[in-house]
């Protein structure tokens, strides 16, 4: 296997009293879209800030491109793009100047930065706004400007904290297209989100964390296979036969979400869906649909994190000293 772009090794971060991240390890290979998933307050942003060298972990280490991150580490900022959760641009500066300044911060020289910035502004439909001040732009436009400044130096790793929050569907699509474009060019993308539908569409690998700890990680398909089990969706066409007793058979069905004309079943371990189909037909049920389905990431997430994760939201995401 190729060397990892990013290795997070058992990092822990505490903020006066509570542990935001607790012995978390991540391993991100090059060229993937990696999703860091978790409920609010799970420690996603803190993890990302440690990756970006903004926070020093209390214990454990972070290695980017094989070098350790932190005050003593090598400056890898030129190879990393960072879109923080709380977006920030200088409100009184001109759009082009902000992009140039942030590009310089990433080690790009001004001339090159200008060419690329004008390119990107044109591409994202902001050409007419180049010389306007940031605070004259709409929220969505500001997000685009921030996005341009995140990737203008063509980084090998793009780290985005909740990239879709606050974006309308059109702009979200623009962002997705650009991400896949980067991915196609061999870049690695790490994004955090608590919206599972999005992660499901975008990410090849995911890691679900809660309370600062890792619950599961790996390629999305594998996570789906190993967690949440096999699912079957059954649709009835008028006659249900003896469905109720078949669904109650714990040797076949582990969990059942039954409504009048449709049921979503989670199969018991080692159960064969064909047996259920045979039994249903034999009992006289008329079926409009019998479908082997993957569990949604959302279901896995809720199964893993549980409703009590909602309380985690009450914990302050931003640490207090």
């Amino acid at each position, binding site marked *: 296997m190729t060397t990892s772009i990013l290795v997070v090794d058992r990092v822990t971060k505490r903020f006066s009293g509570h542990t935001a991240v607790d012995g978390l390890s991540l391993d991100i290979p090059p060229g993937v879209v990696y999703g860091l998933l978790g409920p609010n307050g799970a420690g996603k942003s803190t993890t990302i800030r440690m990756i970006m060298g903004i926070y020093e972990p209390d214990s454990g280490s972070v290695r980017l491109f094989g070098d350790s991150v932190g005050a003593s580490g090598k400056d890898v900022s030129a190879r990393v793009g960072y879109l923080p959760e709380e977006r*920030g641009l200088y409100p009184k500066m001109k759009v082009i100047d902000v992009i140039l300044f942030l590009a310089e911060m990433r*080690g790009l020289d001004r001339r090159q930065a200008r060419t690329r910035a004008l390119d990107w502004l044109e591409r994202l439909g902001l050409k007419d706004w180049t010389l306007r001040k940031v605070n004259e732009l709409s929220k969505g436009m500001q997000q685009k400007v921030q996005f341009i400044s995140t990737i203008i130096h063509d980084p090998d790793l793009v780290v985005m904290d909740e990239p879709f929050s606050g974006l309308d569907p059109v702009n979200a699509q623009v962002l997705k297209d650009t991400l896949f474009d980067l991915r196609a060019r061999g870049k690695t993308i790490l994004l955090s989100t608590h919206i599972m539908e999005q992660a499901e569409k975008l990410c090849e690998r995911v890691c679900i964390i809660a309370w600062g700890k890792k619950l599961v990680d790996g390629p999305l398909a594998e996570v789906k296979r190993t967690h949440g089990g096999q699912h079957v969706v059954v649709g009835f066409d008028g006659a249900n036969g003896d469905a109720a007793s078949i669904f109650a058979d714990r040797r076949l069905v582990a969990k059942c979400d039954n409504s009048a004309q449709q049921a979503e079943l989670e199969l018991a371990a080692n159960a064969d869906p064909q047996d259920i189909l045979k039994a249903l037909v034999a009992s006289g049920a008329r079926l409009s649909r019998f479908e082997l389905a993957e569990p949604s990431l959302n279901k896995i997430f809720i199964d893993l994190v549980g409703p009590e994760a909602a309380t985690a939201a009450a914990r302050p995401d931003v640490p207090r000293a």
Partner: protein
Amino acid sequence: MRKVLAVIRREFVERVRQRWFWVMALLGPVFFGAIFYLPTLLGRGGGVKHIVVIDGTTTDFGVQITARLNRPDPQGRTSFVAVRLPAAPPLEDSLTHEVEIKRLDGFLIISDATVDSGKAEYRADNVSSFATNGALDNALTELVNAARLERAGVDPEVVKRARVQISLATHKVGGAASGASAAQSFSLAYFMAFILYFAILVYGINVMSSVLEEKTSRVVEVLVSSLRPFQLMLGKVLGVGAVSIFQFLIWGLSGRLLFAQRQRLMGASPTAEDNGIFTVPHITAETALVFVAYFIGGFLLYSAMFAAVGAMSSNEQEARQTQQPVMYLLVASYLSMFAMINDPGSTLSVTLSLIPFSSPIAMPVRWAAGNLPMSEVALSLAILFVSIIGVTWIASRIYRVGILMTGKRPSIKELVRWVRTA
């Protein structure tokens, strides 16, 4: 280093582009000029005063006084238009009314007792004008003295000849600005202290609001993932410092221009220089050097503290409270100038010129007063620059932790922890 330069560049360009910079650049000399010339302009007493002399004397003293007040001074200025009226009981009431409706500036009450005991009374709507009071005082003293001497049998001609206006010329001995008069030293000291105080305050607060802007707009998170917090703070302080130097250059040039045109601007009437208080001093190269050295030192010291204040606060209101201790240090240093101008060699003055927080203002004041051994300046500068390193070290640690914090302001205990663990 390239990133620090980029930060310096941004601070400089964004500030110089702002309208207020040019407003300050253009109005600065006018403002400073006003500070110097206004007191003397106002000191003239605001023109001619119309007064009545209520004469209760039995001699011609009242006539003399009235004539004396109506006489123009040696510069040809008329201070009073005085009318003599014999004393009568209802007169005071009606004149009081005249003063109230502003048809009269005031009235002077004299009697025989004035010559005997030196007592007189002046009633007016404004009795706090130094110029008016001084002129009345002078006129009365002169005539009362003459009347008394005359009464004692001295020939009025002898009295006249005995009165000589003393003109004490003061010259500073040795030091950098040798040959400068006391008045010039005073105004130089005053001028330097004020500009230093003003510039350190304005540009220190500029550093603070720049830190605060990045913090509240959350740009800082992207920045500290790109460069070290210390580099960011350094770039900021140097960038704002460069703006202030640029501002000084503009002020210097326009100030020269304005000064060259001062006669025309002030009109034909004699300027402040005649009073001998606010004269424009000759600024020697050494003086300029001392000024610049202490400005840079003071600015670095205070802006590091202001940067830490900005990092500690989450918004403008909070910053305004947090900056108080730093402001007090600066204001106290400025106010102590007035004590030092009177006695630049006192223990207090020497102490203040060595303490790093007050030396940027205190030392230039003492320098301007003159005759300062180079060794003392060197010692004071050495202490100042060592302190800058120490204060910057502490400030950068507070800055590093503070810029990423939101929520309540840290307590002193928490600050100490930031400094220790950062």
